[in-house]
């Protein structure tokens, strides 16, 4: 029985950081991301016997993604629309770093992070999986259970919104 834990630790836990990052981007704060990750890891472990061992990272990311959506449906159903969120709390969108570090970070970096955080969750998810995890359209389609054409159109719309938002923030001189 200890074998089961050992093999879970060996196969799945190396991807914990990727899972946490995805949860953090979908939920936009550390507290909820941590709760959802705990739930996701518990679920993954419970159903580990049914896992074939071919793609542990994709498997964990899928469980994390499903847990995050369940959480949003239960607690923040409002966010599941596809409106660009103009009122995103920029404090939430920033990582908890010291003021000195924040000062050093470029305006570009902050404005892009804030613009991604303000995307509707369905677009944010596709963008983060593509640019941060480097997943292919097909892998994203499988993970989010959407057709490849939808992956392409969501990614495209996410990028158009980001281009517009970043340009606007740069023009207006500072983040709101």
């Amino acid at each position, binding site marked *: 029985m*200890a074998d089961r834990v050992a093999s879970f*630790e060996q196969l799945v836990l190396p991807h914990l950081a990727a899972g946490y990052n995805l949860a953090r981007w979908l939920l936009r704060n550390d507290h909820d991301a941590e709760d959802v990750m705990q739930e996701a890891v518990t*679920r993954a472990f419970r159903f580990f016997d049914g896992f074939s061992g071919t793609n542990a990272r994709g*498997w964990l990311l899928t469980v994390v993604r499903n847990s995050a959506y369940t959480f949003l449906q*239960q607690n923040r159903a409002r966010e599941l629309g596809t409106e660009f969120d103009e009122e995103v709390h920029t404090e939430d969108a920033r990582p908890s770093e010291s003021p000195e570090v924040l000062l050093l970070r470029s305006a570009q970096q902050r404005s892009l992070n804030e613009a991604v955080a303000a995307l509707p969750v369905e677009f944010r998810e596709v963008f983060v999986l593509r640019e941060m995890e480097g997943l292919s359209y097909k892998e994203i389609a499988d993970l989010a259970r959407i057709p*490849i054409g939808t992956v392409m159109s969501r990614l*495209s719309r996410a*990028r158009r919104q*980001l281009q517009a938002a970043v340009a606007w923030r740069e023009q207006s001189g500072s983040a709101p």
Partner: protein
Amino acid sequence: MICNETMRLLDAYVDNELDLRGALEVEEHIARCPACGAEEKSLRELQVSARANLTRYPMPTGFEARMRAALHAEEAQAPTEPPPVQAVRKPRRAWRWAALAPAAAAAAVLVVAMPRLLQQPSETSVADAVVAAHVRSLLANHLTDVASSDQHTVKPWFQGKLDYSVSVTDFAAEGFPLVGGRLDYVEDTPAAALVYKRAQHVVNLFVWPSKRAGDEPVQRVTRRGYNAYCWARNGMHYWAVSDLNEADLAKFVELVRGNR
């Protein structure tokens, strides 16, 4: 290629998701068209900026250690019964988990279903590859390499491109006109793709040599809203894929099988 079409494919181009021919067409167009060229440059800049600047949020301190401890605790408690969830919960948040229980059960069903699909890697990955090839042929507007309703044009076109021969039949009289053929790849194996239409729907019939001996009966597979039928006969694999309804596609499969 025109601007509209290029703009539609530009994201897939920048992400290296187009097939060779689609990529070449986009490349050719953006070399000539300043507006599309500028858009491509802007997309690539966004991509570079995102990869360099998006914050990779670190796990909270001690999170991984807590997870490991929770796993050991859960395993020790009740290996056969569904383990009590308290094992990994923090007491201060317990109320929230109680509210989540029904949703967790629903999500659990999804999680259980998924590994089932993964358990047969070969069939599953072929199905994925075939459906992906079908989708690619529609997305990139690269349906046919040889556009012809004449089976005596399509069949010889494949000779010299494939080291096996493919029989080609037009089923126009039965409502499935042949519109052409295309060289495609399924899991790195060159495959003949015969393209048929039924009203506005496209049917791709993929044919390539089977590595397994013996015929295999018709099997139905669905992937992402596409119906597919596969079978093996006389040393060849056949996959018919379409967004057609099941009954019409089954009729097509019967026509193909009746003919070979």
